[in-house]
């Protein structure tokens, strides 16, 4: 029987099947391939074809099954809305200004402008080129932000989280806008033939930031709304939330998201028990204390522990617990991927 492609193996995991081997992804945000090749994201944005080639070649070299495109998109959309951003030498661009200071600011924002910036168009061109290079072999997911996190970025997380107590009208109004922004971005990127799924990051809905009550009231319904709207595209959805979200895990199957990627702080075995086969699970090798700091042999040992606790039975994808820093050595990433590929229950 011919071996399945990486793309098919990822699809099997999302279908909650036990794939012929565990699928592995390397980047959550997707900047690491640029850094290890000595480029900054800013320098590559003007050259979509080169950006795609650099990005794809690294993923191919380490043999990742799951690849995300769209790193930096949120900042570029904020720039389109009139916000200020700054590029970093070792990470995705940062948003440095607050766009929403009061409720009236929300209505003055024009979503269409968010998508019309030249740099976002270049990012999409890079995604198109990545699709071409991939030729359907690996699973390509478009990455973007969830409504709760976008709302926190629009108003500033401090103002936004205080408003959960002080001004629910403002919070809901802002979340309505953020939900639309999140959806139109994914819609814009999914217009690209050859994108296999959606990767939604919701770092501000972190279990370290919010109580389970606030998560259930404000973050989860917006994830449900987004996943419901994305159903029309027929693509699987993966969600990543930072921090310890053990107390929120039971809520996630109700959002309609297909798979949750958890931070290294979550016990995978416990997560598996809570989810009980109702959605897929991904994670969670520590990106710094394991992937950056240890030797390839130690990386392999620690990766096996993750696999042993969560991979049996399928519906699992091996991922780092958060995004990789520019200092993570390629040989460690290669050891991580190989361990995943070689693992047997």
């Amino acid at each position: 029987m011919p071996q399945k492609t990486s793309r098919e193996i990822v699809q099997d995991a999302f279908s909650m099947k036990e794939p012929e081997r565990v699928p592995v992804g390397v980047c959550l945000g997707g900047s690491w391939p640029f850094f290890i090749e000595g480029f900054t994201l800013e320098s590559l944005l003007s050259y979509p074809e080169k950006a795609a080639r650099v990005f794809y070649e690294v993923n191919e070299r380490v043999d990742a099954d799951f690849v995300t495109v769209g790193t930096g998109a949120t900042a570029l959309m904020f720039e389109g809305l009139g916000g200020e951003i700054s590029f970093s030498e070792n990470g995705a661009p940062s948003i440095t200004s607050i766009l929403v200071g009061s409720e009236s600011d929300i209505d003055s924002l024009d979503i269409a402008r968010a998508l019309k910036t030249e740099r976002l168009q270049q990012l999409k061109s890079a995604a198109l080129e990545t699709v071409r290079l991939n030729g359907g072999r690996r699973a390509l997911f478009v990455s973007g932000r969830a409504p709760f996190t976008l709302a926190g970025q629009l108003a500033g997380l401090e103002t936004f989280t205080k408003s959960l107590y002080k001004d629910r009208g403002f919070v809901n109004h802002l979340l309505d806008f953020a939900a639309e922004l999140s959806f139109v971005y994914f819609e814009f990127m999914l217009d690209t033939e050859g994108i296999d799924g959606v990767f939604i990051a919701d770092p501000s809905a972190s279990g370290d930031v919010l109580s389970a009550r606030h998560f259930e009231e404000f973050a989860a319904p917006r994830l449900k709304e987004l996943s419901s709207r994305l159903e029309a595209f027929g693509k699987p959805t993966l969600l990543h939330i930072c921090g310890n979200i053990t107390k929120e895990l039971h809520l996630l199957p109700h959002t309609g998201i297909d798979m949750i990627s958890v931070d290294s702080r979550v016990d995978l075995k416990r997560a598996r028990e809570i989810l009980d086969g109702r959605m897929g699970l991904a994670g969670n090798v520590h990106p710094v204390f394991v992937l950056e700091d240890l030797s390839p042999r130690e990386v392999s040992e620690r990766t096996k522990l993750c696999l042993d606790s969560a991979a049996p039975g399928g519906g699992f994808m091996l991922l780092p617990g958060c995004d990789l820093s520019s200092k993570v050595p390629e040989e460690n990433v290669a050891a991580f991927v190989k361990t995943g590929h070689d693992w047997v229950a």
Partner: protein
Amino acid sequence: MTKEKLYKGLADAVVDMDESTVARLSEEAVCNRFDAYETIDMGLAKGMERAGQLFEDEEYFVPELLMCSEALTVGVDILKPHIRRSEREDKHKIVIGVIRGDTHDIGKNLVKLMLSSAGFEVVDLGRDVPTNTFVDRAVEESARIIMISSLMTTTMEGMKEVVSILQERGIRSRFKVVIGGGPVSQGFADKIGADAYSPNANHAVRLANELVREDAREPK
């Protein structure tokens, strides 16, 4: 109302995020000529300390701690003008900021507010702070503690640079370097040669107090 009852009421109101009760009781303390410094210390700051403990115990989260801080600020604004000059003692100074490349400052802001309510003078460098700036400002301000925050795995390396700069300039022993933030750990602090790691805002206050005491014991 007795002083003790008023102090407890203020502390409870801070924990309950109840700004109007904090305002009413703070006004009452002023009318009754209770010592303003003591009212802040025994009432408002005690409430914030309890809120910090609830945060550490994962019963309170970021929104709750921010709301407690807002309530505390309402009281401090009323009481501060009534503090006697002799009670405005020299405070221990701490330089704090979010490392270069990282704009997530909510954790740093929580640490800052807890330190301020515990009586430290906090020099806030903001976010996306260049590594040299931590050192330059700590020297300028004659601070003894440098606190650095990072929420991103991609920016943590900058913390190591701050320690290296202190070493290169031959002033490492003049400062205690404390690091914190989501992806940071004690192991990382050990690895980069920081003096301490703090997992949360409440712990940061205890740590700062310990470092100040340790500093006082060390021969100069």
